[in-house]
């Protein structure tokens, strides 16, 4: 392979190509796409957590002027596939969770649809439900594997014996609550049915994923389903797969052929219809020898899943490879409940799992009397502990050392609860971060040489607002050895060649490799001076190094915390993240990704908590006034830095994903800092004031 990483264009802080359109409001998101004479859809949701609809009287709603139809299980068409229960809407009267879709009103305006929805009278047969997350045997089972492709539980050596023999031991249980993705742009779709073809303008993380899942459910040839996602206002995993509302809009549009049907979910509806990070309960047991080296590591995670559809978060997976430990046991269990279906949320697995592991690491460092940075350095493995493979690159130690230097960690007094100023106790904490470097094969890109002397680059990837459009243009420019102005990138829809999902921080690496491959083939076929109209489509070759190296990004998170000695209020005046995440394609958009991830980590540490009421089975604080996410005033100084990391194995550009690692470890760093500030160790997120009251 030619190394394309030296021509200088990668890494430049190019401004977002779509920035002006976004800030002037001319970038059109899904719901804003111009369509003729649209109708509006409002979903009807179950008010009970388990049971069935015995009667649904839609006549008062249908009698309202402006209402076109009310879909229910009684009149909805029979779907070709019911494999995905989230998509197989209105196929039976059964209810598996509160908030499940039981119908939809379609009307001339959003207001009429919402009003009519309130007029539909539903009679239920209620069945007993179970929605309270806990570790009772009756609801707990071991899944066959967990997200994304993590295999069975791991049991190496003899953990119990090693713990019994250990000089130092930590045994602690940590809990994290249900957290909700809440992207800025709520989920929205417009379905248009014309001549037996379905067009969806949809806010998603993969237009091909939407097509691949919707087409078989409707019994359609995928070629007849067209999906457009030109701009997306965040997804964080909740737009990774299509949810019920997309099917509702599609069904309604088919029924009302000729009229486009628009559906935008409200925040409240999102709390039951688009997934969430499941709550977890994680026990971590660590054993160390007198030199502060880990001899035993056990991470047992329990997460929530839904009875209607399994989602197995992989909270304990990072502990498989994070530190040395001759004896290691990793287990993952699920508690199955009558709740909405959980899904990916930014850094699924690592975000919650590394909170537990990195808090336990802090506890162990204190137990051993070793500085927390030093303790992690001492436990750095030479090869990936689980597989024995070498790392393609692993620079956690450098992140920790550089971060410690930049943050002023080295002068730190480890004594807790002694720094007090104007009624505020302050402290500092550290945690490590990691996230796998995924590449998803199978994407294709087309490159054409156009009149006017520019290169048209097409790939059906989606830019979630992360800056993919800009970063991929830079990659294309470099691979074609032309200035970035000579590249016109088209993405976001199934009109372009097939591309993988924007998920698992895999986008830039997977799509970038595809574009590089297409550029090479284009030049091989058409030379440096192609004729107008020259065109090449290519697919990236599989990475020959996959399976030979363990590939991950790493980082070190530092936080300074202040806790009010009277009220327990907790503030984070300062954070620093130092990352080793391969080649950085665009310094500006990359910084925003890290910043955003760290801010989301702060929000997870201090605020986010979906409170479930077991009597009803719903999230009580299901809006943004009740479900707190960090506001500007909560975010102090956030500094982002990265190492100049050269990884020759991950892909031709040396890129690792950066979308998710920013959130990992933040909650632990903040919790560890709060402990340093107050002496109080909280093992339950979020870190709300009452937990620090004395």
């Amino acid at each position, binding site marked *: 392979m030619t190394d394309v990483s030296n021509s200088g264009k990668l890494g430049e802080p190019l401004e977002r190509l779509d920035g002006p359109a976004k800030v002037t409001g001319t970038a059109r998101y899904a719901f804003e796409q111009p369509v003729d004479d649209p109708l509006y859809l409002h979903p009807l949701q179950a008010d009970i957590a388990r049971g069935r609809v015995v009667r649904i009287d839609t006549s008062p709603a249908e009698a309202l002027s402006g209402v076109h139809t009310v879909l229910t299980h009684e009149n909805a068409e029979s779907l070709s596939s019911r494999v995905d229960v989230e998509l197989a809407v209105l196929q039976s009267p059964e209810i598996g969770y509160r908030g499940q879709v039981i119908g939809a009103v379609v009307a001339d305006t959003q207001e009429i649809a919402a*009003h009519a929805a309130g007029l539909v009278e539903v009679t239920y047969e209620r069945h007993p439900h179970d929605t309270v997350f806990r570790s009772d045997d009756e609801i707990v089972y071991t899944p066959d594997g967990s997200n994304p492709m993590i295999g069975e539980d791991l049991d190496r050596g003899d953990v119990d014996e090693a713990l019994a023999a250990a000089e130092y031991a930590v045994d602690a249980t940590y809990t994290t609550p249900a957290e909700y993705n809440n992207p800025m742009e709520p989920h929205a779709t417009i379905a248009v049915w014309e001549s037996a073809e379905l067009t969806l303008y949809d806010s998603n993380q993969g237009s091909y994923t939407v097509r691949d899942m919707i087409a078989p459910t409707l019994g359609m040839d995928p070629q007849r389903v067209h999906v457009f996602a030109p701009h997306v206002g965040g997804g964080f995993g909740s737009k990774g797969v299509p949810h019920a509302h997309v099917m509702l809009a599609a069904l309604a549009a088919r029924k009302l052929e000729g009229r486009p049907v628009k559906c935008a979910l409200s925040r409240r509806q999102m709390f039951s219809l688009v997934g969430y990070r499941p709550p977890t309960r994680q026990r971590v047991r660590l054993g160390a020898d007198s030199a502060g080296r880990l001899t035993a590591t056990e991470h047992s995670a329990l997460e929530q899943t839904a009875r209607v559809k399994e989602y197995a978060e992989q909270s304990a997976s990072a502990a498989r490879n994070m530190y040395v430990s001759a004896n290691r046991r990793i287990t993952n269990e699920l508690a199955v409940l009558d709740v909405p279906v959980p899904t990916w949320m930014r850094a699924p697995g690592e975000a919650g799992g590394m909170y537990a592991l990195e808090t336990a690491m802090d506890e162990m460092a204190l137990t051993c009397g070793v500085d927390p940075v030093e303790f992690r350095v001492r436990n750095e493995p030479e090869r990936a502990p689980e597989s024995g493979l070498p790392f393609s690159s692993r620079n956690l130690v450098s992140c920790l050392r550089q971060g410690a230097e930049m943050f002023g960690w080295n002068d730190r007094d480890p004594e807790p609860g002694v720094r007090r100023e104007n009624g505020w106790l302050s402290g500092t904490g550290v945690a490590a971060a990691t996230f796998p470097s995924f590449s998803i094969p199978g994407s294709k890109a087309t490159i054409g040489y156009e009149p006017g002397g520019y290169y048209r680059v097409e790939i059906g990837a989606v830019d979630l607002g992360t800056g993919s459009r800009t970063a991929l243009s830079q990659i294309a420019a470099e691979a074609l050895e032309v200035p970035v102005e000579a590249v016109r990138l088209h993405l976001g829809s199934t009109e372009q060649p097939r591309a993988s999902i924007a998920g698992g921080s895999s986008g830039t690496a997977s799509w970038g490799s595809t574009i590089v491959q297409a550029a090479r083939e284009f030049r091989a076929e058409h030379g440096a001076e192609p004729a107008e109209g020259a065109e090449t489509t290519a697919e990236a070759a599989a990475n020959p190094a996959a399976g030979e190296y363990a590939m991950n990004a790493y980082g070190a998170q530092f936080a300074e915390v202040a806790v009010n000695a009277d009220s327990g209020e907790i503030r984070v005046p300062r954070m620093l993240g130092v990352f080793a995440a391969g080649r950085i394609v665009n310094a500006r958009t990359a910084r925003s990704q890290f910043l955003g991830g760290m801010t989301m980590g702060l929000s997870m540490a201090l605020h986010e908590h979906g409170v479930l009421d077991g009597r009803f089975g719903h999230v009580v604080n299901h809006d943004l006034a009740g479900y707190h996410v960090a*506001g500007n005033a909560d975010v102090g100084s956030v500094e982002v830095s990265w190492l100049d990391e050269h990884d020759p194995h991950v892909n031709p550009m040396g890129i690792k994903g950066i979308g998710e690692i920013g959130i990992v470890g933040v909650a632990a760093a903040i919790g560890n800092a709060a402990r340093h500030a107050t002496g109080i160790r909280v093992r339950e997120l979020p870190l709300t004031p009452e937990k620090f009251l004395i």
Partner: protein
Amino acid sequence: MKPFDYQRADDADSAIATVSGDPEARYIGGGTNLVDHMKLGITEPGKLVDITRLPYDSVEALPGGGVRIGATVRNSDLAASHVIRQRYPVLAQALLAGASGQLRNLATTGGNLLQRTRCSYFQDTSTPCNKREPGTGCSALEGWNRYHAVLGASEHCVATNPSDMAVALAALDATVLVRGQEGQRRIPVTELHRLPGDEPERETVLEHGELITAVELPAPSESSRSTYRKVRDRASYAFALVSVAAVVEVSEGAISHARIALGGLAHKPWRATAAEEALRGAPATEETFRNAAEAELAEARALRDNAFKIPMTRNTLSAVLRELTRQEGA
């Protein structure tokens, strides 16, 4: 949202006549609370009478040193008013601690006083709530009640009043001016809101159709100091877990006068008379502050999720008193 009529009122009398004569009609100020409730189906008025063009949009000095605040003065304008900032800092601080800049730009004095509880079950028509639908039960009593009352609650309702402004007004001995079809009346702000008792649906002593026209503040004592302290989950844009408004005068090391109101604890802004009593004439010491707080909280009753409010109030009230009684330069 149910369709509704909308009228812009040009004079108070006809506005009052319209609303008084129609049980389905409501006044609308900034609409930041009412419109949310209409969208959520909590209230479904048939008619809105917009009062923001009525001539109640100014802050006026009164003879004798007090001020009159018009009912339609926006929260942002009131917080920025020179006389309020100079002479009633507790009120300016309370306003700025509430909601967000955008909301304060719309919110009015009258609307703020009459904003309804943020109890999540009240705001969700799919769950029982005695306040929204009398007789259906109180979901919060044994549900998620972290934000709920520890003082003055009943088995029928444990909701809290969410207003920051009203807490400051309670500590300032404000009076609410109200006009109805029968004429005008003056209500001490501490008597405007009710405790829930067995009628949680009635939050204030106002009759349907009565219009708040103004709030009057008595002249402040030149030697008093005041402050508003709000404890919340976020650094901004969150309702109070606990808040304290206090106006204190110290002479010769002893507290000569204290007026204290607490927020986040009860169905109304809670005037802390027991604490005031305990402080009167007592030396400004840590022990005095704590005793005063304990005296006020003696009757406090915690629910499943809000026991922390009791020590949090005790600590916060003590901290506020410490700050207000600290000698200059000390």
